């Protein structure tokens, strides 16, 4: 189960995620949400993953796929507050280097 809440700071959308990004539900929910943001013309997106407890291989693939989708639409996707376990999961997949990730929200906002 993944809960998503949306807030906006200037022209940047922050999605606060809570729960698991896994096959069958969390991954699809996140994709649908980001696709609707892109449809609305949003191009600067932060995923706040502070309360993401677990991400499986499908969820990891979905986050990679979303990064590519946003880039293709001339947007930027940044990650915020990765827990050590989520960081480890990205590290296992050797994907940490493809993301911009931050531990401080103001720093992430300034990075656009």
């Amino acid at each position, binding site marked *: *189960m993944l809960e998503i809440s949306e807030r906006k700071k200037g022209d940047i959308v922050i999605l606060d995620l809570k729960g698991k990004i*896994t*096959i*069958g*539900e969390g991954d699809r929910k996140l994709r649908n949400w980001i696709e609707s943001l892109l449809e609305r013309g949003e191009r600067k997106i932060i995923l706040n993953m502070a309360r993401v407890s*677990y991400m*499986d*291989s*499908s969820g*990891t*693939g*979905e986050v*990679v*796929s979303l990064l*590519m989708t946003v880039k293709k639409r001339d947007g930027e996707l940044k990650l915020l507050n990765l827990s050590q*376990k989520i960081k480890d*999961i990205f590290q*296992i*997949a*050797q*994907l940490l280097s*493809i993301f911009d990730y931050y531990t401080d929200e103001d720093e992430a906002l300034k990075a656009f």
Partner: protein
Amino acid sequence: MKRVEFEFSAKIKLLNIVEKGIEYFLLNLWKIDEDDIYWFMVGVHEVIVNAYLHGNKKDESLPIRVVLMLHGGEIIARISDKGDGFNENDIPDPTSPENLLKPSGRGILFTKNACDSLRFFREDNWFTVEIKKKVKEVQNA
């Protein structure tokens, strides 16, 4: 040795409930360290999803069998499906540059890294994936 075995057939959305049950069992009855359970369940989840998607090819009438054992500080899961199985050597390396940005293909990689060993075998019409992990048992959990 402690041992538990069960079979189920389920929709993908309900796999989560089966996994929650295993997690509850490991934490509360076998009293295994939470961090060890987290990483062991990374492997269990990937193998169960693999059994459902690729082994039983999403046929919700086919069973998945789970055997859990705890012996000598090591936990073992044997997860079996009714599929043809696969050859590990046929799975592309998801960390190679040409596969890095692909949306799928990381399940075995996650399982290998989360657990200490991984092996596959066929027995009595079941294809089985066995994972093992050394764990800490918590006496007063």
